[in-house]
């Protein structure tokens, strides 16, 4: 029963994929649609999209978690509100604006898209890292230090393990945000499923548009599901 519940989401997503494939198969496809919806093209777009989202997520985790750790250390706690404010601006700015301004300033391509995605999805990870570390019971840190654990050992063996669930929740949010936002990469020549969706819109081919959109949603749901699995595995026992 638990296994079934656990596998419910991928089963549903596969079902949706099957329905999509059957639906596309029943359509009369013209040459443009056939090119856009060919297996090779779609696979290429999916891989591009995954690369973008994954790269952005990895960069975000590395940057935002380290920043979150630094900002919760005793010496730097005072600057934390300022950094959070900057991260808030990053998230509040429309992501398309980021992309376009980024493209104007720095040019187009994968790296620029990556930059925009990182700026946009850093906040949930940063905030959850800080909240996660701050909610660790002070008396545990007191006990750890009192027993002679160094500040680094206290961080690695007590503070971080106890914040893992909160931090991973932030990472999941960032992952989903990144998959969604990566569709905008098409506007600065970044590739991905955004290309498929955008051609569908521009060329007035709804089949292409729907296929791109549904594939993006499926990817977001599946990645979230994988991340939830990772969360269960990484959550410390005993909590």
């Amino acid at each position: 029963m638990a296994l079934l519940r656990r596998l419910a989401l991928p089963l549903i997503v596969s079902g949706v994929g099957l329905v999509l494939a059957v639906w596309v198969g029943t359509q009369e496809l013209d040459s443009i649609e056939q090119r856009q919806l060919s297996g090779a093209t779609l696979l290429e777009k999916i891989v591009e999209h995954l690369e973008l989202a994954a790269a952005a997520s990895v960069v975000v985790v590395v940057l935002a978690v380290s920043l979150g750790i630094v900002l919760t250390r005793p010496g730097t706690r005072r600057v934390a509100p300022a950094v959070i404010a900057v991260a808030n601006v990053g998230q509040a700015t429309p992501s398309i604006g980021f992309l376009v301004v980024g493209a104007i300033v720095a040019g187009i391509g994968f790296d620029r898209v990556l930059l925009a995605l990182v700026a946009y999805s850093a906040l949930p990870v940063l905030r959850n890292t800080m909240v996660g570390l701050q909610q660790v019971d002070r008396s545990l840190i007191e006990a750890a230090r009192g027993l002679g654990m160094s500040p680094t050992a206290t961080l690695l063996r007590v503070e971080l393990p106890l914040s893992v669930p909160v931090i991973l929740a932030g990472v999941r949010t960032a992952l989903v945000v990144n998959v969604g936002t990566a569709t905008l990469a098409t506007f600065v020549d970044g590739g991905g499923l955004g290309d498929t969706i955008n051609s569908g819109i521009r060329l007035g081919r709804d089949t292409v548009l729907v296929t791109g959109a549904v594939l993006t949603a499926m990817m977001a749901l599946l990645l979230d599901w994988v991340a939830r699995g990772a969360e269960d595995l990484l959550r410390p026992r005993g909590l």
Partner: protein
Amino acid sequence: MASVAERAPGARRPRVPAIRLEGVTKAYTGQVEPAVRDLSLDVAEGETAVLVGPSGCGKTTTLRLINRLITPDEGRIVVDGDDVSGAEPDALRRRMGYVIQQIGLFPHMTVQENVATVPRMLGWSKARRGERTDELLATVGLEPSAFRDRFPRELSGGQQQRVGVARALAADPPILLMDEPFGSVDPVVRERLQDELLSLQRRLRKTILFVTHDIDEAVKMGDRIAVMDHGGRIEQYATPAQVLSRPASQFVSEFVGPGATLKALSLTRVGDLEPAECPVLGLSSDPAAIRAAIRRAGTEDALLVDDVGRPRCWVTVEELERRFDALGEAAIAAEATVRRSDDLRLALERMVSTRAGKAVVVDDAGACIGVVELAGVIAAVESLRSHASVTARGREVRPLSPVSD
């Protein structure tokens, strides 16, 4: 060292203080009044010193200064002859067990991992850590096989604090710092944990600095008590008996509160009392023999015991004359019994709860080994008071013989 010698001239071996504070001052940023001002205190090796005082008086600050969780603004702290300001704080702390009121067990680690925290940092092998954990769990009264692999949330408050104590003892540190260790458990469990720590301490002879706000706990646990007022000012640093019978200031006597004499009763054991004169005879003794024994002893009554020596009843001469054929019914049942290791508070309680006004001292098998009465308790209180006044002038010896267990 001269001042050390002056402090305890009666001691048999020269006592080097395991912990010494000299003129220590600590002010927290943003606070006008320092939390601790010009504090000086010596804790002798192998002794339990209790810091007791109202909340906010600087007790916890003092502990945290000693293991350098905070640094003093002024003054010197010397542990085992070394100035701690020169020591590497983490290494220093591994030489001192630390127990806090919130217990602070790591929730994501098993009992075994919690206990082995310090040994792991010291680089002990896994096998040695496991062995040590089992040994310590047994020491604090937890069955190793049942508790080793549990997580803290699966333990009761009392069990958690036992693990906390085991964790503090893991690397066998010579010094234990305990900050209200039993503050978060219910009174029954607290009493038991106190007793266990006392018996543990009789074996381990650690230097313990114990913080509490409860004067009863201080009297029970301490070889010496430092009564603290705000700002870490020590109003009196003396044995429990001295603090109770000779408070050094208005503050101390108010802090000790009413009933200081009753509290002092818990410092003396039944075994230390002068036994009362009392004829003890078998239940089946001839009335004439009982009468003769009472007359010879010059007492009002005699204690009758059964064939294995267990106390049964008290009889007076009048009762013997009136109802010598029905002794069992006429006499007062000798129900009030105490052991040699019981304290006088309990003995007094037992005495006043029966008409006889006396208690029978029994051994482990329940056989009578003597009788104590109210006069003996009063005499003990008197001697405690005069003894404390003598020791207050210089000799600092705890006025009670250790209980043999």
